[in-house]
């Protein structure tokens, strides 16, 4: 009986020894390395619309800039000056990722995947009308280039520029710039307060 008890103790202690050995083995990681910082690759921080009046005049730029991406700071929206009534402007967009240095230009990616992207221009108070000037491989509008025709009288309103990813480009009205049936996901949505003089 006594020998059995001794054996029992021996075996129990052996088990605990094995357990200690296992614990000792398991800490095998290199904690000293810090993780590398992530600079978001396809984030769009800045959208700049440049409007050049046909026949000369003041060039107007509108910009929305959100350097902290999904962070708490709201985008900074600027409009360089008022638009002139009854004027045709040639418009173009530049999209940047300014979290990188130097800033990455997103236009190229959008042009490469033009079949999957479309910009929409919406206004309140009918302050202006828009025409697409660039098209994707299927002949559907893209919207990086456009013309803007201001209303005939002085007024104020909002211009909303929306970039949709994978919209239904063939849905009713979408090729005319109507966002209602476009679907897809919003990549950019910027609202600019506009004054027509």
């Amino acid at each position: 009986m006594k020998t059995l008890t001794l054996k029992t103790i021996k075996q129990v202690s052996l088990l605990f020894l094995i357990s200690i050995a296992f614990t000792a083995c398991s800490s095998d990681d290199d904690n000293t390395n810090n993780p590398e910082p992530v600079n978001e690759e396809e984030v769009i921080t800045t959208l700049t619309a440049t409007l050049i009046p046909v026949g000369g005049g003041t060039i107007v730029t509108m910009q929305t800039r959100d350097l902290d991406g999904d962070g708490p700071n709201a985008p900074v929206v600027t409009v360089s000056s008022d638009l002139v009534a009854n004027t045709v402007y040639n418009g173009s967009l530049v999209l940047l990722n300014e979290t990188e240095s130097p800033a990455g230009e997103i236009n190229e990616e959008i042009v490469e995947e033009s079949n999957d992207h479309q910009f929409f221009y919406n206004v309140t108070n009918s302050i202006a009308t828009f025409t697409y000037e660039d098209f994707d491989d299927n002949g559907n509008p893209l919207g990086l280039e456009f013309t803007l025709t201001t209303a005939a009288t002085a007024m104020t309103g909002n211009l909303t520029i929306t970039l949709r990813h994978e919209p239904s480009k063939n849905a009713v009205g979408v090729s005319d710039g109507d966002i209602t049936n476009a679907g897809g996901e919003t990549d950019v949505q910027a609202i600019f307060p506009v004054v027509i003089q």
Partner: protein
Amino acid sequence: MKYYLMVLCCCVFSWSQSQDCNATFSGEVHDFHDGTPIINATIFIESLNKYTTTDINGRFSIDNLCNALISVEVSHLACETKTIDVNIVNDTFIEINLEHHIEELNEVKVTGTSGIKLTKTAQETHLKSDVIDRFSSLNLGDALKQISGVSSINTGNSIVKPVINGLHSSRIIVMTNGVRLQDQEWGIEHAPNIDLNTAGSINVIKGANALAYGGDAIGGVIVLKPSNITLKDSLYGKTIVSGNTNGRGYNLNTSLTKTYKKGWYLGAQASLKRLGDMEAPDYSLTNTGLNTKGFSINGGFKTFQKGFNVYYSYLDNEIAILRAAHIGNIEDLVNAINNPQPLVIDDFSYDINAPKQDVTHQVFKTEFYKRFKKFGRVDIQYDYQNNHRFEYDIRVGDDRDKPAIDLTLKTHTLKTSVTLDSKNNISYNFGVNAGYQNNFAANTGVRRLIPDYDKYDLGAFIVSELKLNNDLSLDFGLRYDFNQIDAKKYYLTSRWNERNYDSDFGNIVIDDLGTQLLTNPVFNYHNVSASAGIAYQLNEYNSFIFNYGLSNRAPNPSELFSDGLHHSAARIELGDLRLKQETSNRISGSYNFQKNNLSLNIEAFYNYIKDYIFIEPTGTEQTIRGAFPVWSYNQTNAALYGLDLTANYSFNDHWFLNNKSSITKGKDVSQDQALIDMPSFKTVNIIGYSNPKWLDLKTELQSEWVFRQNDYPNNNFEVFIPTTGQMELVDVSTTPPAYHLLHLQSNISLDISEKTDLNIGLNITNIFNTNYRENLNRLRYFADDVGRNIMLQLKLNY
């Protein structure tokens, strides 16, 4: 050789019987675990056809034997029969230990492989293998919904998380073959990485009363165990093939096990599952397919006294997430909610495109146990788990096929426990465990949702079960856990300041990159849990259970560190470094009635959770993509209470009625409002018919009635929609209407040969192809739930 020896012995004996054979063979038979004498055990010498039985002291004696080697068979009711070879040399005395009360012992084992219930005084339900087989082509969460009080929280049809009495995710422990699953269970979109086909039985314990598994199971514990291994020379297996009309998919599962009488065993199992796009009654649910591959190997040696087990399992789940659920900003969400149909509906396809998840989970486990005479059992186990999770978002350009999330979670756990069960009326189980976990988030070009971290766990517990008499048992448990989490996380400087972390946690910043800060949060948590229970059998028909559980849960990495945009919910989710652990006090009572054809089980609970961690809307933030609501993790005091009912009535040998109903209420006590995501009242009524004469036909018609959840917090808000120029209400709160579904399930069994039988099952879910949306399905904003499915299942046992 042995055979010849035996023959020789017999010859010698026949020859020598006429000779002078005066040897006496005597001995004592004891119960192995408590050493008490076993009365009435049969001692049988086959070669001589002589037998006797033990007396009140466990003693026996057989006279007039010759000196020879004899084979003695010792047997007793409730014991495993033992055969020993004894060399008779004159008067021979031996001591024999029998393994008494095998079933009873298995019940108290933590890592056992048989037995029905794992606890004596907890609210526990057991699912057997035939129920599990029926759900072979589905998920763990689907199978567990068979239990009253268990529901699920879904992201579509393939990501199904079990909810026990209103609680889920890191409030539930999932044990698979003795291993606590560590697979980033904190997120609602992270379903348990378990192949249901690896389980032979499942036990669900409500509440935190099974302290041996962990102290933080405020919701409960789910224990999956592989099929029991029997000690005989055998080769057996099972193959299940099923086909589904909805999703046009198949499921294949096969297993084979070889066992030896001596105790060795080896089993292997593999499963394949493939589904294409599922269908709601009116449209195709584009991008909801599934591709699952898994296998496991289980081998070892098992006897009553000692054994070991080596287990490895591999599971790869590639799950598509409804295309229409991926949205860009709050305007898209408003469009999705207001549109009766999903915004993307394509033709049926087996393709699995982004958004999707691809998760590989591997478990390696080795376990050893030994039982010591008059003492108990010692277990030691080491396990390693590797969980590799990819999440693919819809991305553009060169990153199109790059995952947005790439997390590798590695967990090592070592645990040892001792069960003292040598006394009949009291048993103790105590143990310690140590764990190390490392999470690595690879750079995917998208800010990390969960940071790199190391986590250390240390725990110790003691559980005692006391049987006062045949009708009354008590149990007590105490557990202590220490957790440390040591993370390295980058914060946007703007976020860091906005959360006021600069004043409270300024000392943990270890690097300043200008727009980002690298921080090193280290948090320690001390958790104490306790449980006490009483089970009382009033008389033949009525029994009661009462118990109390105290448990603590440390905040998980998601609750602490979340920080960013959540695409499917179109919201910014923010964790909080200031969160403390939550504390649950749960009392519960059960009443069980069983008489003739009627059985009734009523379980009630009240769970008060102090500092309950939950997520709630706290404002709106503007980004270049538009406006997003901000949801932040907060703490409140919450009370959950409810009633689960299971009733069964058999009219005769063929017909039966069954009802399972469950009501759960959740209340935010501090803010005096309802808790979000509480399961609705649900009642399931079943009428069943079975007839062994008709190819063992079993059939049942199930009516599932889910009421509308009327208690929910109003988290609706208004947002400016630029394209319409108007403020619009974002209704994320209003719950979907009640729904009623009918399901049919039937199967027959055919004997193909002596050892092979074929079971053919036909299951129809949602017979009337009813349109419905379930409150606890996160994709309810985007699409209806799945429609009718007809599944044909062939199960071959051999």
